[in-house]
């Protein structure tokens, strides 16, 4: 049984083609993955990402409770700020990657991946008891992304939006409804994500679309995040990978001395020389490299890894992918091959991200 989005009818009316994803019936695409992808790179797109699980922890002890199960030092996270973090296991493997928002009056919002919604909420229950409450079904989450996103958001929510820094989060009023807004995203573009109660979400979605945002599905979300080299849990990171080899050391705080699940293993992992690293591969020939394909040493050599993600980059018009490579092969400029169903396609280890928005370069 798939869970339907609150805005399903609107997506349908816009021509969405749906696909099951982590128990949800999600729009895969509307007009087409490439057109939606380019709309986000060049203008602005809107995504319904309500499948992401949302839970509050509201208590004066919430920060400590959350800290005991997550990797980032949220005790130093100021009010009005959000940060990326991880749930790790005792071995330091990544159980899920999450976002934590710090709101006034000891209120903390945690965003989980849909596939782990239950286990993650159970974690919160364990440490926070009744102070943890899930609001996934009652709310809708919309991501507005692209170089023109902040202009559109400013028109709707007021010019103060423009003053927000990346990862700032704020509660604002829009047409008598409260919107939780954070300057965050998963595309490599500027923009933000809004959480609003389901009853008012249709009106907000319509305002974004009539304001010029292109409706975008999970297909474009995946190609955008891959170009931005943002890992996807279940593909690029999982309970057997640790944050340092995945390039996620920024999400782990060890210096604050706080105790959390996985800390001992992570202290050790950090001190140990890496044996493998999540590397970024760009095709140097025509063809598409996809998750699961073998990566070989050049010249038909040994299989050294499998791609954890892969696809066609609409912005760069070439195949791109991620793989955990032995460190000696993970150096920029190394030439390898990907086995594309029996055909050897040359690939090069490149720097991350694959695609950089023009303003950063």
């Amino acid at each position, binding site marked *: 049984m798939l869970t339907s989005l609150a805005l399903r009818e609107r997506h349908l009316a816009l021509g969405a083609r749906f696909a099951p994803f982590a128990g949800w019936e999600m729009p895969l695409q509307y007009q087409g993955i*490439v057109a939606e992808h380019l709309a986000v790179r060049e203008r602005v797109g809107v995504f319904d990402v309500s499948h992401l699980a949302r839970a509050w922890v509201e208590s004066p002890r919430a920060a400590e409770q959350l800290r005991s199960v997550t990797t980032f030092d949220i005790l130093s996270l100021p009010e009005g700020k959000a940060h990326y973090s991880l749930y790790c296991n005792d071995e330091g493997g990544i159980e899920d990657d999450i976002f934590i928002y710090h709101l006034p009056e000891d209120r903390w919002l945690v965003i989980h991946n849909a596939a782990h919604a239950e286990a993650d909420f159970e974690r919160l229950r364990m440490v926070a008891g009744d102070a943890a409450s899930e609001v996934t079904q009652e709310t809708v989450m919309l991501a507005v992304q692209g170089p023109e996103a902040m202009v559109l958001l400013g028109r709707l929510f007021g010019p103060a939006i423009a003053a927000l820094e990346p990862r700032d989060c704020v509660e604002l009023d829009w047409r008598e409804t409260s919107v939780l807004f954070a300057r965050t995203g998963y595309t490599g573009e500027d923009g933000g994500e809004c959480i609003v109660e389901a009853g008012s979400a249709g009106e907000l979605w319509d305002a974004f679309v009539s304001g010029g945002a292109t409706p975008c599905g999970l297909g474009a979300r995946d*190609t955008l995040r891959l170009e931005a080299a943002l890992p996807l849990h279940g593909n690029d990171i999982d309970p057997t990978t640790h944050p340092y080899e995945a390039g996620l050391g920024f999400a782990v705080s060890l210096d604050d001395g706080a105790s959390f699940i996985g800390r001992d293993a992570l202290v050790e992992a950090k001190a140990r020389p890496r044996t493998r690293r999540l590397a970024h591969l760009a095709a140097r020939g025509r063809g*598409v490299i996809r998750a699961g394909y073998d990566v070989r040493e050049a010249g038909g050599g040994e299989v050294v890894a499998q791609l954890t993600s892969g696809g066609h980059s609409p912005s760069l*018009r070439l195949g791109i992918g991620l793989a955990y490579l032995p460190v000696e092969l993970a150096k920029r400029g190394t030439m390898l091959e990907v086995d594309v*169903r029996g055909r050897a396609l040359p690939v090069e280890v490149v720097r991350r991200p694959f695609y950089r928005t023009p303003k950063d370069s």
Partner: protein
Amino acid sequence: MEYQTPENLLYTADHEWLRREGDDSDEVTVGITEFAQEQLGDVVYLELPADGTALSAGEPFGEIESAKTVAELFAPVSGELIGSNGELEDRPELVNESPYDEGWIVRVRLSDASELDGLLDADAYRELIPED
């Protein structure tokens, strides 16, 4: 959704079309149908064999990659590949935009014209398109 299925073409159950270049010509042009391109989504790359390659009816001869998936191309008839659409190297999206015209994929010289009798006409092919 109504998909175009031009009457002057022949079709396969693999959602490819074939056009004979003249009544008695042994040259045919092959592509994929509007339904097929819609199912695949944005086409980003085609892997095709070199001119001169021998094709045998029903066997895979190439691959078509879209943003989300990859599908095999099957030879609708036996014969020799005598050309492929070079425009698709830089503009694979022509398969989506113009599946029956600018998005043609290969030309084949038939080795057995009687194989054409085994293909579907537009009416028969339309029966194979699932209704959403």
